[in-house]
């Protein structure tokens, strides 16, 4: 009898040892935090030139993080930060002008940010993300459609998730209002980002 009681106690101890970390891992796995991987993330934009054609540009320096909760997507969040001074259209003189007070005033307002305030799942892999978008010193609430592209382990063994969105903004609403006759007011923003899970 004494031996059976000891065996039961040992069994409970073993189960506790095995199950507690497993349950804990399951909870972590439901909501994971990711660091945005700049090497596999792109912020592109497209501007209309004098109603004649399009000019494309990009911001190579992007960072931030997001949380993703598979069981409750509404509990997820995303925070993205872009270095305004990294703007690149592959024409040096134009890039300097874009960084100047005529456009981004990148030295005065060094980052462009997006902070989500609510997320709603709209389809199997699609989400409607509402958040505060800040350019220069102007913050506006915008809602964008975001697609979950995929997930999996990268070559270094870290778990990754990737997302994609395209949306339009009126740059003049953000005090980026230099000469709309030459550079169109409407900008198409194309954002693709991958995050690496944090340990």
């Amino acid at each position, binding site marked *: 009898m004494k031996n059976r009681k000891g065996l039961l106690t040992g069994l409970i101890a073993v189960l506790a040892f095995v199950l507690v970390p497993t349950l804990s891992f399951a909870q972590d796995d439901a909501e994971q935090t990711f660091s945005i991987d700049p090497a596999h993330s792109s912020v592109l934009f497209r501007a209309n030139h004098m109603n004649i054609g399009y000019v494309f540009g990009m911001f190579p320096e992007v960072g931030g993080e997001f949380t993703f909760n598979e069981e409750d997507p509404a509990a997820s969040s995303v925070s993205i930060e872009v270095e305004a001074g990294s703007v690149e259209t592959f*024409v040096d003189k134009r890039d*300097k002008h874009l960084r100047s007070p005529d456009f981004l005033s990148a030295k005065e307002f060094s980052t462009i940010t997006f902070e989500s305030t609510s997320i709603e799942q709209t389809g199997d892999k699609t989400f409607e993300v509402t958040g505060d978008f800040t350019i220069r010193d102007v913050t506006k609430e915008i809602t964008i459609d975001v697609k979950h592209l995929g997930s999996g382990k990268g070559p270094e063994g870290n778990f990754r998730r990737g997302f994609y969105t395209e949306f339009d903004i009126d740059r003049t609403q953000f005090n980026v209002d*230099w000469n709309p006759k030459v550079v169109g007011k409407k900008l198409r923003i194309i954002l693709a980002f991958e995050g690496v899970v944090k340990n």
Partner: protein
Amino acid sequence: METVIFNAAVWGILVPATITGLLMLVEQPPWRVTSESDTPLGFGWAGALTFPLGLVIAYVGTGGAPKNIPAIAFVAVLLGLFEFGIRKPQWARWLVRAVAITTIMFALIGFQFADYWTTLGQDLLWGTTIVAITALLFETFDRVGRNRPGATVPLTMMILAAGTAGFFALVGTARVAQMIGALAAVAGAATVVALWNCNTRIAPGASTAWGLLYAGLTMFALFSLMELPPLGPFAILLVAPHLLWLGDVGPLKNLSGWKDTALRVAVVGAATAAALGWTQALVGGGGGSVY
């Protein structure tokens, strides 16, 4: 495109200049017979009010930069009216000037202190240098304006602001260049009125208000660019207004009337033109020409 040029010409130049001219005519009607000794304070309150007002009109009409122009214009009006009303004691004038310069510069280029000048030593060095440069600008215009009636000072202001606007347009900030151009426009209006009545004077009050706006916009343009513009030409622009003193040196101080004005304006104009030409050679064309 035509609309943009129209707005810049009308709201950035014509309207500010017209209002400036009218207000100055109200303060000191040229058709009223005056003598040099009757008009020691010509363009005092009118200039102090209308130079900043002109800048605000240009800002609202053209959507200029930086965003806090109305606030700096308000400080410039207060400083200008204080200078107009208070000549003594000197220490009070300099105290108010120092407060005004510090306030404006911090409002305009405070981001430099926060993010780029990372040590107290850098803050003090740059802060003191900028305050000293602006104070020197005040002193030059104030002294020459009191001693020299007529168009000498406003014409110099116009040339200087036009050249500085051109400099910043070349190195890539059209918006701020446009605002400095508005300062050239209001100085141009003052020149016309001063030519009409050669006994009028631009100092005091008006010159400090104008100087504060000019110095503030210039420093904002300089430090808001990601890369510093060519420092050689910029240094010439900093020195240019002080060449006004040349008319007080040696035998040159015996020149009278239009010869004195022509000499002073010519040296300031030549320096400004040299700065512009050098900049053009270095950067090779307008900052916005890629569009």
